[in-house]
């Protein structure tokens, strides 16, 4: 009869298969063991039999040709049930085997002894046996049984060895699989920081290749800001201390930052740190998402714009829009604050008239985002306010609305617009974007009707202005030139074809020294120009009309005093002389006033030529010697100038004559007047020294002011007009020079002026 199947047959077979020993070649170690077993028990046959599902297969056999027999006739199928040696001393006498073909047949088995192959700690039935077989009945001695048990342990040990190898191999494969196919980054690093091993994910994530590895240290791969922490960690690990999980950043080959989390431990051999082993997970995306989430929360919180989110409860009804979120800025906006959970019409009923609920509904249903400008309505407090909104779709039938309060901006803009448009001068304000604000007078200037839409672009306005000019091209060119260097204020005059004279003033609008627009101001100065012309004519006429009677008066007096028309004596002559002197003075006064008028108007033409300062001074002293002699004052020129000055000879002679005449007038009898010449960088210095009483400090400033005459201390009549120095100053300044005075009371005065040399005036030398 065949043996029953063990109750744990399935797991028994699994254990057998796990050994992976079935149908494998013979192994000398097992062959040796069964040889020993046969010898010890003095039997011809010994086997290592493994009981498979329907056969027994011999891993080792001795004294038998067959490699397997059917399981239902196998003695071993019985032996595997127990845990002890299974002995059949005479099979013919045993009802279980007496009819067995192995007993009855050619093989003629009589004796069987099998020890189940059991691994340590293994429960249940065995996977096979070590068995000995004889063709005659036998009884095993105690020592034979012990030997068989010992040999069985050897078989089990051998198979166990095999099982362990097999497991190891499997685990290695699994491990390699994990190493290669896992997404975690795995590395082992020497205490010096060299990479000993990294897995495929490590290469793939960081972009390095195996060829790169020998050149790398762990610090090449760790972001610089984490180096210090990494050093501390390694020191702890090497010292055998426990370390917490790591959160750090690796730098890939291309510089990509990879945020990782992981654990590292240290492998010791004989108490010495061999290498650190780390396993990391790339959490970059997760971190980025976290950052994004925090940022989003923070931005929403800090956003100066109000943000509201409405949910469309019923897709067919825009009144069902319900406020589901508002940020702090929205909470601070008194219009709808604290209305989360309420419906749109309850919150801001004004929106309905503006069509906004319908717009929000369409966007909540997936319509495109929209920006709406210039939304304005009166708040419950009665204030008119304006907003710009941006409505955009959000998932789940929601619409987000960003709301910017533009009230202030709109107010400012409209105030500015009102200001510019109402200005009592023709003003054009051009913004950076090229939009134009023009005052009413600007339109009037061009004779245009007032619609503000007519000139909305600056080039068009410029064209209109140019068209109105006599010299349109010149006007255009000058305006273009102004705009190429727009950072300075500039003025020019435009002569309109209709005869009007327009002064154009340009002013850049500067913000932090950068120009952000232009301001053009146009002034009709026709009237002023006409007045100037009339004044010129008046001055010319007056000069003629005043001089004509003066010519007669002074001529008559001079003829009288000279005696050519008969003798005038004693007090009569004295009176004639007084009239004569004052007539001269009146003549000079008229001349000086006309001269100053010309200087003020900038209409004095200077005829500049190269002049020798010494020659000019000498000629003048020659001409004034008679006057000097009369005043009993010596007059001379000292020094020389090594370069010519560029000046109008007539005018500079006039300046010098004025200074010298004054000097003579104020010098005492027996005194001296010297014209001293000297070089100055790029200039020639003229100084007129007198030996007069000097000028007190507090009066010097007034010297060059019109009609300021100092009192003559000695009471001599000086006969000046009070305009001489004012004219001298204007003339010198128009020559690009300077004029001044140095004096100390009692020690005389020095009136000086400086004029540019020819070379300096031509820009060949600089001061």
């Amino acid at each position, binding site marked *: 009869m065949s043996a029953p199947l063990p109750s744990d047959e399935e797991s028994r077979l699994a254990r057998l298969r796990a050994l992976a020993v079935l149908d494998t070649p013979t192994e000398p170690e097992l062959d040796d063991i069964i040889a020993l077993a046969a010898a010890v028990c003095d039997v011809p046959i010994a086997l290592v039999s493994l009981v498979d599902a329907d056969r027994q297969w011999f891993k080792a056999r001795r004294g038998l040709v067959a490699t397997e027999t059917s399981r239902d006739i196998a003695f071993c199928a019985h032996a595997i049930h127990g845990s002890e040696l299974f002995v059949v001393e005479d099979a013919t006498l045993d009802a279980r085997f007496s009819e067995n073909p192995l007993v009855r047949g050619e093989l003629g088995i009589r004796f069987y002894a099998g020890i189940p192959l059991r691994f340590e700690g293994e429960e249940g039935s065995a996977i096979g046996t070590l068995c000995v077989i004889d063709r005659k009945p036998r009884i095993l001695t105690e020592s034979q049984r012990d030997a068989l048990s010992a040999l069985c342990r050897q078989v089990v040990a051998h198979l166990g060895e095999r099982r362990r190898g097999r497991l190891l191999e499997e685990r290695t494969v699994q491990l390699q699989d994990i190493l290669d196919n896992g997404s975690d980054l795995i590395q082992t690093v020497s205490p010096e920081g060299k990479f000993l091993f990294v897995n495929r994910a490590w290469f793939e994530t960081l972009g390095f290749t195996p060829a790169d590895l020998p050149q790398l240290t762990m610090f090449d791969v760790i972001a610089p800001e984490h180096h210090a922490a990494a050093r501390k960690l390694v020191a702890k690990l090497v010292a055998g201390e426990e370390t917490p999980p790591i959160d750090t950043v690796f730098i890939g080959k291309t510089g990509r930052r990879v945020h990782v989390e992981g654990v590292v431990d240290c492998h010791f051999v004989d108490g010495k740190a061999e290498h650190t082993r780390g396993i990391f997970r790339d959490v970059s995306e997760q971190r980025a998402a976290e950052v994004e989430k925090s940022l989003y929360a923070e931005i929403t919180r800090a956003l100066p714009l109000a943000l509201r989110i409405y949910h469309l409860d019923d897709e067919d009804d825009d009144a069902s829009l319900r406020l589901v979120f508002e940020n702090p800025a929205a909470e601070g906006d008194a219009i709808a604050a604290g209305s989360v959970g309420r419906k749109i019409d309850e919150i801001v009923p004004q929106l309905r008239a503006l069509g906004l609920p319908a717009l929000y509904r369409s966007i909540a249903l997936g319509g495109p985002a929209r920006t709406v400008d210039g939304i304005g309505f009166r708040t419950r407090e009665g204030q008119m306010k304006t907003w710009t909104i941006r409505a955009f779709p959000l998932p789940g039938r929601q619409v987000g609305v960003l709301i910017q309060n533009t009230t202030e901006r709109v107010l400012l803009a409209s105030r500015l617009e009102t200001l510019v448009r109402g200005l009592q001068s023709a003003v054009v304000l051009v913004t950076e974007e090229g939009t134009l604000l023009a005052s009413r007078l600007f339109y009037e200037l061009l004779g245009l009707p007032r619609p503000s839409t007519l000139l909305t672009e600056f080039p068009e306005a410029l064209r209109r202005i140019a068209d109105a000019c006599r010299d349109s091209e010149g006007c255009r060119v000058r305006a273009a030139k102004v705009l190429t260097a727009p950072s300075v204020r500039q003025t020019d005059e435009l002569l309109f074809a209709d005869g009007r004279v327009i002064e154009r003033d340009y002013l850049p609008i500067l913000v932090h020294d950068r120009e952000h627009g232009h301001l053009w101001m146009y002034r009709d100065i026709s009237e002023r120009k006409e007045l100037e012309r009339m004044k010129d004519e008046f001055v*010319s006429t007056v*000069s*003629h009309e*005043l*001089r*004509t*009677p*003066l*010519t*007669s*008066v*002074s*001529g*008559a007096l*001079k*003829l009288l005093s*000279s005696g*050519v*028309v008969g003798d005038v004596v004693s007090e009569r002559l004295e009176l004639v002389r007084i009239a004569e002197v004052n007539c001269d003075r009146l*003549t000079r006064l008229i001349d000086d006033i006309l001269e100053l008028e*010309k200087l003020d108007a900038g209409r004095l*033409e200077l*005829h500049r030529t190269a002049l020798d300062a010494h020659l000019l001074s000498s000629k003048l002293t020659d001409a004034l010697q008679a006057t000097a002699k009369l005043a009993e004052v010596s007059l001379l020129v000292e020094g020389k100038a090594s370069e010519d000055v560029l000046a109008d000879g007539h005018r500079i002679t006039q300046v010098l004559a004025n200074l010298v005449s004054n000097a003579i007038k104020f010098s005492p009898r027996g005194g001296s007047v010297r014209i001293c010449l000297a070089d100055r960088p790029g200039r020639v210095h003229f100084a007129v020294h007198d030996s007069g009483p000097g000028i007190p400090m507090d009066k010097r400033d007034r010297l060059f002011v019109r009609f300021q005459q100092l009192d003559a201390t000695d009471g001599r009549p000086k006969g000046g007009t009070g305009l001489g120095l004012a004219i001298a100053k204007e003339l010198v300044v128009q020559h690009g020079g300077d004029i001044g005075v140095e004096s100390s009371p009692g020690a005389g005065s020095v009136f000086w002026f400086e004029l540019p040399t020819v070379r300096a005036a031509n820009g060949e030398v600089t001061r």
Partner: protein
Amino acid sequence: MSVRSVLLVDDEPDIRRIGQLALQRVAKWDVRLASSGPEAVQLAAAAVPDLILLDVMMPGVDGPTTLVKLRELEGLKTTPVIFMTAKVQRHEVDRYLALGAAGVIAKPFDPMTLATQIVELLAAKP
């Protein structure tokens, strides 16, 4: 050249008189007087003077126009003409000289040196 006879043209009788006295008494010249441009042309045509002193601003025909008229007369093509004027701005002086004037004397003039001034102007002119 030496001056013997002068034609003095001015619409102001006082100035004519002063000028006359100055030139007759001081320089001993023969002075004839005209009160307007046309009169000057008439007198000059009748007897060509050595020199004509011509006022600029005169009602009717002014000095410069008179000069042009004088130059049209035979015998007066080269007669020196000196303008006497209260308007002596440079551009005005330049204009008179361009018309062919021998010089310009500013008003008010000094009667005692008027003749000397005239002689100097004529001497400077080649």
